[in-house]
Structure formats: C-alpha cells, structure tokens
C-alpha cells in the first residue's frame, strides 16, 4: 500500500484565520448568539482519515461501526510494523479532547442513515475507507485455498469478520498476485520466523497456524516488469534481510533494467538498484553461506497475469494457477502489459490476490462512482450533495500510506472550514448534533461504545499480551469487545 503524498497543510497565516474565525460564528448565525449556533460536524469512520480530519475541526463526533477505533492502523498495518502504529497516540489525544466524541458500535447505513445524520449535523464527513477488494475475475477464484489479501490481512490482524478464514497452510508453494506493499506484507508474514512474530500483536490463532505452516516458497507475481513494481524500498529491504530466507528471481526478467536506471527519479532508482543487486549480483561469502542455509525462499515473477485457478481433478481445492505471459509496451509508469498468447502453469496450494482494496457504497442517498469505487468529489466536497464531504481512501481511491491519508484529510477539513467561512455551507439553522442521533439509536436498541469503553478493551488486550510477551492480545469477536466495554 503506498505512494506519493500530496503533502500539504494550511497555507494561510494566522492573521487570516483569526479574522475568519470570528466571521464563522458571526456570519453563519446572523443575530443568534455564539453559543446557540455552534457548527455541528460528524465523521463516519475512525481510521486515519477520520481522525486526521477531526484534528482540524472545532467540534466533531466520530461514528465507527466496530466497538474499537483506528481502522486500518489496527487492522491493516502489519504486526511487525509497530512504529507505524505510533500514530494511534495522536489519534487518542484527538479522541480524548473535550471537543471530540467517539461513538463506536454504530453502523451508519444500518442503525442510522446518512440522511438522518445530515438532519442532525451541518456537515457529514464520510471517511469509512475501503472494505471490499478488487476481484481477479478469473475462473476458479472461489476455490478453497484462494483468498483476497484484504481477508488474509484481516485474519492475521484480528478483524472480527475474518476470524473464520482459517487458511490452509499445508502446501509448499504460495502465489501472491500483486506486488504492492500489502503483497510484501503477506509474503513476510508467511515466511517470517515464528520467534519474531510471537513478540508482535499478531493474533494467537494466526501464530498457531503459522507454527504448523508447510509453506516454504512464496512467489510474488506482477503483470508488468521490475521498473513498474508497486512496492517501496523499505518493504523490499525487509524481504531481502528476512532471516532464514533466500531470494529466488529470474535473471531474464531484469534484461534492460540496468540500462534504464540512469533516467529514473531517485525513489524508483534506489528501489530498482536494490532489486537488481538482489537478483543479479553474485553475493559475498557470508551472504552466500546465509542463503545456502536458508529453509525458505521468496521471489518476484514478472510479466504474468492470472487467467485461471486450477483445481485438483475431482476436488474443489486449488492445485495450481495458470498465468498468461505478458510483454511490455511502452516504458516507465505508463507501460502496458500485453498478452503474448503464451501461458504457464504454476503448482501451488495457496493463492492470495493482492490487487487492491475497494470502497463500497454506504447508503443509496450518497453519490457513488462504481467505476472508480469512490465517492465523486472535488477537494473532498461530495458532488451534488451539499453538506457532505469525504476524506481518505473513499475520496481518492485505496492507495497511500498514513501520511498520504493525513494530507488528504487535512485537505477535506480545510474545504469544510472554507465552506463555513464563505457561507457555502448553510449554517443558518441550529442543528441538534449527537443529541438527536443518540436518541434515535436508543430508540433502535443500539448502544454506542464510548472512548473510555474502548480504553477498557485496550487495557484488557494489553494485559493479556503482557503474559505472552506481546504488546497486546487482541479480542477477536465483537461480542467479547462489547462485553469488556460494558462491564
């Protein structure tokens, strides 16, 4: 998951904002006194998009479907990347601020509609991300042994809906389709020594499954070539340095790559250099010895697209995958993979499709672009829907790291503030905010989880982890979470 961040923040100085601040309250409410017409804003989704948007708003309510906050920071970031999760500290500060209220266990779209939120709030921000995944669209995709990376990652990270995944790890070879950072995360979790993983917040059932795993070889497959690979250098380096593993690449895949190096921008160049070194360079004695002792292998396979998942004759389990062989037309980022007509069968017992997450529509009243799988918007303002905004992956599509989402969310917050200032956002009428929503939820028998309730869950998880030498032992079902929250 990755890329370039349109880094940005406020480009106005404090003078301008001071003046604007007084205009927001005075202009928006006419003769009403300041206190009776405060802007009411709510955010749907408590991942990085939700929290970074909240950080720049004055008063805000955050609605989250699960009893626990933080979205993909908790359920997407790999267990062996704990520093990336440090951002939770910033989000916790935001949530505990008196001007922010967290309402977990509230399913927007089911327990309460967007229309009802819009009646209660001046502005509603959709930050619920991408919970679906792109499908390969090939026969055999539904065979046992084929998983989306979204589900696989959800499984090892304790997402309640993925608890029953129980992937069969009794095969020798696993094939991952896609070469982004999520694909590398999956490869790394499949091949990491258990001694490393057992000190992370990976779930206990996953740890047990991995301890029994027979997987010894992971192929990470991409449609195009080395220069188009979507992962970043940090993740590649982790694979190269993964203990007890050795790289297994096809030298011919790298023809012409060295010559193309000089024209590449720095990030692409460093990444490609590391790949070339790993694939082609004769290793020194020490590295040679390390590789010969390694019990597991990993490698990239380029210019390959899936065309069919093959079943064992007479069974509904996977036996292998048929890959079409491509050639590249054009070069650089814009190069296209074109079929050559040739195919190749790779025997394997596990296929993980890591070709992208996908947002889903939340409510028929919200415009949705099903081709791009995003909510159509301009600078975070939902098109043809006054008072509706979006941030994060729902706004721009499901790529980018936390920093990307941060900039994207600050951008949306700025649009909201601008609209309040300019009067584009109609704030002439006072709105009830969480008061009316809480009443609605109570009537419907839905009890929200507060942030302090989450802190009880947090403490239980950390305590359980302590006895195992892990930062936390995650609760794996919504029922357990609610039980802890409300006891």
């Amino acid at each position, binding site marked *: 998951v*990755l*890329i*370039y*961040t*349109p*880094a*940005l*923040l*406020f*480009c*106005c*100085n*404090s*003078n301008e*904002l*001071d003046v604007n*601040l007084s205009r927001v309250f005075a202009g928006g409410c006419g003769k009403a006194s300041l206190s009776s017409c405060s802007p009411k804003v709510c955010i749907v989704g408590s991942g990085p998009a939700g929290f970074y948007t*909240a*950080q*720049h*708003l*004055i008063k*805000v309510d955050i609605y989250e479907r699960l009893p626990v906050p933080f979205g993909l920071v908790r359920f997407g970031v790999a267990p062996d*990347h704990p*520093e*990336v999760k*440090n*951002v939770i*500290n*910033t989000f916790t*500060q*935001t949530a505990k*601020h008196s*001007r*922010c209220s967290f309402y977990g266990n509230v399913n927007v779209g089911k327990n309460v509609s967007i229309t009802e939120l819009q009646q209660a709030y001046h502005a509603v921000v959709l930050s619920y991300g991408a919970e679906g995944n792109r499908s390969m669209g090939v026969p055999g995709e539904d065979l046992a042994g084929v998983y989306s990376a979204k589900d696989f990652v959800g499984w090892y990270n304790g997402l309640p809906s993925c608890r029953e995944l129980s992937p069969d790890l009794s095969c020798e070879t696993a094939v991952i389709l896609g070469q982004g950072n999520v694909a590398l995360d999956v490869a790394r979790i499949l091949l990491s020594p258990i001694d490393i993983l057992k000190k992370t917040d990976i779930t206990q059932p996953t740890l047990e499954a991995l301890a029994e795993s027979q997987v010894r070889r992971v192929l990470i497959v991409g449609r195009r070539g080395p220069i188009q690979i979507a992962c*970043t*250098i*940090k993740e590649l*380096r982790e694979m190269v340095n993964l203990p007890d593993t050795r790289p297994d690449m096809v030298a011919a895949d790298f023809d012409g790559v060295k010559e193309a190096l000089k*024209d*590449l*921008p*720095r*990030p692409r*160049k*460093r*990444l490609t250099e590391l790949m070339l070194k790993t694939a082609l360079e004769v290793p020194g004695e020490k590295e040679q010895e390390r590789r010969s002792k390694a019990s597991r292998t990993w490698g990239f396979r380029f210019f390959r697209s899936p065309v069919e998942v093959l079943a064992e004759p007479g069974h509904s389990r996977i036996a292998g995958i048929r890959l079409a062989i491509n050639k590249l037309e054009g070069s650089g*980022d814009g190069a296209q993979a074109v079929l050559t007509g040739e195919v190749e069968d790779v025997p394997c017992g596990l296929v993980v499709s890591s070709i992208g997450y996908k947002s889903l529509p939340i409510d028929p009243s919200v415009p949705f672009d099903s081709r791009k799988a995003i909510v159509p918007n301009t*600078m975070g303002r939902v098109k043809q829907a006054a008072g509706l905004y979006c941030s994060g992956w729902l706004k*721009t599509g499901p790529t*980018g*790291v*936390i*920093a*990307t989402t*941060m*900039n994207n969310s600050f*951008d949306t917050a700025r649009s909201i503030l601008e609209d309040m200032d300019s009067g584009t956002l109609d704030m002439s009428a006072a709105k009830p905010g969480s008061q009316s929503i809480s009443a609605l939820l109570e009537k419907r028998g839905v009890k929200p989880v507060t942030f302090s309730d989450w802190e009880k869950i947090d403490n239980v998880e950390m305590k359980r982890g302590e006895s195992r030498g892990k930062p936390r032992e995650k609760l794996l079902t919504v029922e357990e979470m609610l039980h802890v929250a409300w006891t």
Partner: protein
Amino acid sequence: MAASAAVRSSMGLTLRLSRVIPDCSTCPLFRLKCNAKNVANLQRRGSFDSLRTINRHLQTSIGLYHSEEGSSNAEHPEDVVNVVYIDRSGQRIPVKAKVGDNVLYLAHKHGIDLEGACEASLACSTCHVYVSAAHFDKLQEPEEREDDMLDMAPMLQENSRLGCQIILTPELDGIELTLPKVTRNFYVDGHVPKPH
C-alpha cells in the same frame, strides 16, 4: 553514505528552493521587527490554535513530555542554537534552541505544523523538511532507513531531510528549516493542471 550523496546530486528533479521572502537577516532593522512580531505571533498562534483546531495545542505538549530531547531553556550562551522554521505559508519563525535538541520536537514545542506521525521511528515521512544550503552538508549523513522513508516524501529535493533525525549541534547555528509547501493543485501522479 557516499553512494546516496552521489545519487542525490545526480537526481533528475532539482527543484530549487525558491525563497519567497527576501533574506532580511543581514539588516539590523530586521532583528528589531522580528522580536516584536514573534511575541505577538506566539500569543496569536496560541489562542487561534486552541479555538481553531482540536489538538494543535496538545500536540505542542508532546514536545514538552519529551523534554529530554526537545527542551530548550537555553541558559548557557554556548549552548544556544538559533533556528528558523519557515512554515507552509512562508512565515519565518525564529526559535532559540539548544545543542542536542531534536528538530521535530522543537517544532512541536513552538507550535509549528510539523507532523510526526510515527514519533521519530523512521516509519513515515511526515516530518520532511528542506534544510538551508549552508547547513545541509554539516548534518550527519542520513542512514539508509531515513533515505528509504525520504523516498516516500513528495517534492523531494536535494536538501531534503527528515526533521526527526536532525539533532542540533553548534555548527548548525542559523539553520533554516522549510516545511514543504504544496498547494491543492498538486496531483498524486505528478500531473500539473494546465491553466485555463
């Protein structure tokens, strides 16, 4: 890291750091104006912060908690390192820091908009800054992990560094750190919209 330095200098994109504000630091009137303005700015920034944004003010307190890294009550003149942050609107914010201060936490302490999502663990690029040319070479070479994260930062320049990795030394007196400014007309794929 000679290799990375070589790569840096051969880098295709060489966006020169364009100073929108003329260098007034040589003018005696500048110091006078600067001190007066700075006090007013801090007061104004303080009040606007707590009203405007939820926890900008609280963010500052992160710096205080990391007082062993970020505190800068400079009592001894030899310890003082003068730093200027240039924020995203081009505003110059001079800061009196101390030898050993961390540039990220120093920024937080002074309410400067430098996010540090991963809390200085080289797992993000949100504390990306441009370092003044005169001081860039006085910094310790970045370790490989910093270069890896810098690769993810947009608008990477030859004088780019991660703020969380810069620890102030006496030679860095006068260092200027510019927060990358990107307008909303910037597209993720590098597309530059044509004016119409």
